[in-house]
């Protein structure tokens, strides 16, 4: 993968382990007592022996004023790319020894992996993985943690276009084509008749064997309306909708765009253009041929 996200991830991983600022406070009894109460842990051994529960490793450096870790840039880049959702998926901790009262720990972070894009139940996303190690003053490891999050694109991120087509097995090829920048016209696989709108059976020969042609993308405006009222969800007023006659011999409805409304006229030559309306839908629209 050579996309910018993976490039950045590789760069950050190449930094290796990056040390952060030391913990602002030493390991201390009040915090341990508070944590034990919050967790419902009644084991008296920690305060009696003057050691911290190992699972507290992260607690000591949580509020540390820190430099940017190698992880931050990756997460920010994922946010910018629209993968704003986040959910933790893995957390594995390894304990080398107990941290003792009075010790001051220092974290170090190593970005290890970015995997994706992957389709998940939450949406398309990337799994980002990093390791944090907490060191004592002698730079010996006290605890380690592997942490992994899924950064995903929430379905609501792009506002969904409100005028969605219904799609079924007879029409999916058309909308799939639009996503790929192709204006597809159904062609009967038996008699070759072209047809739009498409359907399951060729009205000319009754065959159900179907394929499609890719239109040249040129057309002529056969008729049009300028919609002024009432307001239409997802549309700015006024807008132009036309019936376009294709040289292939079929007609199709679409918006005429990138043209002053007073210049729109029956008979004008047009060229198809593909416009994404949201994350799912691409509509074939029409611009003046001259443009």
């Amino acid at each position, binding site marked *: 993968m050579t996309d910018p996200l993976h490039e950045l991830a590789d760069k950050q991983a190449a930094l290796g382990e990056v040390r952060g600022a030391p913990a602002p406070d030493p390991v201390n009894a009040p915090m341990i007592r508070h944590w034990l109460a919050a967790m419902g842990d009644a084991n008296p051994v920690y305060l009696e022996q003057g050691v911290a529960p190992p699972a507290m490793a992260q607690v000591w450096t949580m509020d540390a004023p820190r430099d940017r870790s190698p992880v931050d840039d990756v997460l920010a880049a994922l946010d910018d790319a629209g993968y704003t959702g986040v959910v933790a998926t893995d957390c594995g901790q390894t304990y080398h020894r107990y941290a003792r009262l009075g010790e001051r720990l220092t974290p170090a972070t190593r970005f290890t992996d970015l995997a994706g894009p992957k389709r998940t139940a939450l949406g398309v996303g990337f799994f980002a993985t990093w390791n944090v190690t907490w060191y004592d003053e002698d730079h010996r490891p006290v605890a380690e943690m592997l942490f992994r999050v899924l950064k995903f694109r929430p379905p609501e991120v792009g506002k969904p276009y409100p005028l969605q087509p219904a799609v079924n097995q007879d029409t999916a090829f058309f909308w799939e084509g639009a996503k790929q920048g192709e204006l597809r016209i159904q062609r009967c696989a038996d008699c070759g008749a072209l047809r739009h709108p498409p359907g399951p059976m060729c009205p000319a020969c009754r065959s159900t064997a179907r394929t499609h042609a890719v239109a040249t993308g040129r057309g002529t405006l056969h008729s049009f309306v300028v919609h*002024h009222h009432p307001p239409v969800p997802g549309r700015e007023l006024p807008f132009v909708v036309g019936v376009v006659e294709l040289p292939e011999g079929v007609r199709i409805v679409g918006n005429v765009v990138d043209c002053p409304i007073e210049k729109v006229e029956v008979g004008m030559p047009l060229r198809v253009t593909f416009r994404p309306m949201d994350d799912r839908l691409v509509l074939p629209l029409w611009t003046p041929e001259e443009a």
Partner: protein
Amino acid sequence: MLSGRAAIGGIGATEFSKESGRSELRLAAEAVLAALDDAGLSPADVDGMVTYSQDTNQEIAVARETGVGDLTFFSRVEYGGGAACGTVAHAAMAVATGLARTVVCYRAFNERSGRRFGQPNAGLSGEPTSQGLEMSWHVPYGLITPAAWVAMFARRYMHVYGATSEDFGRVAVTMRRHAATNPAAWFHGRPITLEEHQASRWIAEPLHLLDCCQESDGAVALVVTSAERARDLRRPPALITAAAQGSGAGQMMMTSYYRDDMTGLPEMSVVARQLWEMSGLSPSDVQAAILYDHFTPFVLTQLEELGFCGRGEAPGFVRDGGIALDGALPVNPHGGQLGEAYIHGMNGIAEAVRQLRGDAANQLAGVTNVLVTAGTGVPTSGLILSSG
């Protein structure tokens, strides 16, 4: 043959308003009772009911409210306002075949204060039914309102025949003039000028606001029974001389843009052919026409499809006063849906009956045959009603 076997023996309606303040079921029940009363019949006489598939009041509910007992025939007619005359066609068939003796047809809605058909509804393309898929070629582009669907045809008609917005406007002006002298019309006493039509705001170019029919609350009901029995009822019968439904090749709901010719209404031609064949009449035999006027351009198209003038000649026909009360073919003497009320075409059928009885607000002289049409741009229907 269906011709002459059945008749409309009673008509009834609520007031036409913008806010009825009553439920749609109550409107239906009130109109049904009014129609039965007009015929001199009681709910106990009713054994059949027909309405539009778009009507929200089931036949059984209307029967319960009005105290109608056993039903031996009930039916729904599809395709929006295209159902109007179709309800009478279904009722006439039921009567002629003996499935029922007295059938009530009704349409009731709060189309202004409740669900307004002119408002965008993204749900039109929400489900992969055949209609949802059909709408999916249009709705995603914002082509989502009836006015815009019709405007697409209107622009092509203008391009091919040189028709103008004023040509559409003359239809609206005529309908409003008729409504101005009809006390039941919402626009009673409120005629418009062609200048006002031209100055009204754009809805979907080339359609102005005044090219669009009103939005109304109200209900209309009709009682259909056999011709012999109708002659014994309280009011003079309106014989069903012809009744037909029609859909054309390549038919869609309001968006049949993929046929070779976008300037006509082939489905209305299918209806016209049957009406003339079934009745044995020709255009010169009808003294008035009730033409479905949800949007002005299709009134012109219907004049052509029904044979009252040639292709592309309707603008001239209207300009010459052809559809006025004193014209060659008076159209919608009650003011139509542009002037009286939008009751999905059902109020036009009632007007045809009044013209035949001789008690309409704008009564024409010597009316013996009236042609009625239903919704345009959709699979549709038509009637020829005759005095008898």
